[in-house]
Structure formats: structure tokens, C-alpha cells
């Protein structure tokens, strides 16, 4: 196949898996602990921030995206992008409804 060299297969070592696994557990602990601290509106930010980091770890390492082709990365990105379009453009309508009433 000339124009698309097959992506060579990168095998992630178990050591890395263990590291990721442990950091996921730690982050879980952290997010739970954080939820017990009163941070007002930052509670949401922190919780979602940690969730995003965790998701990134899973996507990059468990799902091997870090070692995958550009195509896979693009695919992941386009999924996220459309997801964001759905959520934010819909929310934009709901939020701006209050700006003026007709």
C-alpha cells in the first residue's frame, strides 16, 4: 500500500500501564477529596478539570492514542469537536434567552 504506510504497532509496557492506573486511582481520590472542600463555584471547575485529566490519561495511554497515527488523533479530535458544538451551541441558545425578552 503506497500512500498510507501502515501504522507500526507500538506496544505499551505494563510498567506504564501501572503508572497510569495508579495515577487514575490517585486522581479519583483527589477529586473526591476536593469535593469535600468548600471552593464555591470552583468545585465544579476542579471536578471537571480532574475528570478531563483522567480521560486524557485513558485516551492517550490505555487507548494508545499517544502512539497512534495522525488519523486516529484527528478522529478523536473531530468527535470532541462535534460534541462541543452540540453542547455549547445549544447552551448558547438557553443562556441568551434571558438576555432579552420579546
Amino acid at each position, binding site marked *: 500500500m503506497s500512500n498510507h504506510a501502515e501504522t507500526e504497532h507500538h506496544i505499551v509496557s505494563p510498567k506504564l500501564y501501572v503508572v497510569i492506573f495508579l495515577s487514575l486511582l490517585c486522581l479519583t481520590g483527589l477529586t473526591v477529596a476536593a469535593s469535600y472542600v468548600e471552593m464555591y463555584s470552583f468545585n465544579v471547575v476542579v471536578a471537571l478539570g480532574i475528570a478531563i485529566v483522567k480521560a486524557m490519561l485513558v485516551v492517550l495511554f490505555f487507548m494508545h492514542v499517544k502512539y497512534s497515527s495522525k488519523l486516529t488523533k484527528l478522529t478523536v479530535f473531530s*468527535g470532541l469537536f462535534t460534541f462541543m458544538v452540540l453542547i455549547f451551541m445549544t447552551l448558547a441558545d438557553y443562556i441568551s434567552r434571558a438576555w432579552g425578552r420579546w
Partner: protein
Amino acid sequence: MPENTAIAGATEVEGHHEHPPYQRHHFETMGQQNDATNFAMWLFLLTEIMFFGGLFTAYLIYRNWYYPAFVQGSHQLSIFWGTLNTAVLITSSFTMAMGVWCAEMRKKSALVLCLVLTFVLGLVFLGIKSIEYHEKWEKHHVPGLRYNLDSFLNPASDHEVYQEYHDKPLPLDMARHTELYFFLYFAMTGMHALHMIIGIGILTFMIIQAQRGAYTTGHVTFVENFGLYWHFVDIIWIFLFPLLYLISRHAN
């Protein structure tokens, strides 16, 4: 009748002679096949993201609208069970990742072990989930089915939750909207659980296949792709957990 004359013919592509039995006829090489199925799996996960996207949108909108109801609804969830379940799911994700590694390294019995562990952890997750569901049922917090507003109109009646949060009683109209919270809770965790159940079904099949050595002779794509699916389900939960359980702990 010259056929295909207008096209320069490619000479035999290497690897054409001895196909592995699991290579489908229309692929030129195993690598191409693996790439294709892997990519297909990713595209399938895209559809899954968008599928959950609708639910996330609904959740965000209604949380914004009926903030107090969503906060108190959230207080009815047990952070303990939620955290435990998160840990269980992450562990299962880890064992799955290890399973993929074992398959890649052709370690048959280790692979089977990993798959079985994943399978068991999946079941544990569902078990805990059903404990939680059962509790909701007991408290009449299942929307549409004898839904009851007591815990919100009169939070003190529910000592355990009350002691932790000191929730004020919600006005009736706001209390009614907790049903929306619980609906979204059930819809989102239910969809998630459904994906787990499907995953466990496939795992069963895979364990049998792995036992037969189907994946340790070189054909690991199936395991890898299933791994993607399993991790994806994990990621959904990683977001559901803070959204449903955690972020409303302090909001009052």
C-alpha cells in the same frame, strides 16, 4: 475480450500467498486489515460520543435551570458507592489494558486471567450499581414509578442525608423537578450500564476464544478493539461520576 486492459496491473503484492486464516479476502495485507478495523472502531466510538452528547446537553441545561433541585437530588447519591465504583471501573480498565498487552505478547494464560478479571470487575460494577438502584427504588426515587417527593419537601425525615448536608426543604415546585434529575441520572447511568452489559457479553465470548488461543496466535486486533470500547465506557463514567455525584456536594 481483454479485461482490465486499461489499467496497469500491480504485480503480486507480497503476503498474498499465505494468508493467515483470519485475513479477509478483500484486504491486501494483515496490516491493512488491522488498521481498517481499528479505525472503524474509533469511528464507532465517535457515534457513541454523540449519542451520550444528547444526554449531557440535557443534563447541563436542566442543572442550570433547576439548580436547587439538582443539588438536592445529587445529595441523595452515595459518594461512597460512587467512588468505589469508579475505582472498580478504573481497575477493570487497567486489567483490560493489561489483557491487550498479554495478547500482544502472546501470553495466553495471562490474557485469559486479565479478561476474567475484567469480566468480574465489570460484574462488580453492575452489582454496586444495582445496589444503588435498589436504594433509589426503596426511597421512591425512580421517576415515573411511584415517585415521591418526601426527601425534598421534608429533608429532615431522611436522617442520614440530612445530617450530612442539612438540606433545607425545597418549595414544592422546585421539589418536583428533582424527578428530572433522577430521570437524567437513570438515563445516563442506565445507558452506561447497558454498554457495560454489552461489553460483558462480548467479554464472555472473548474469554472462551482466548482459552482456545484465538488471540495469541497473532490475531490481536479484536482484543485491542474491544479494549478501546471498554476504555471508552470507562471515560463516560469518569465524567458521569463528578457530574452526578460530586459537584453538588457543597452547592446549597
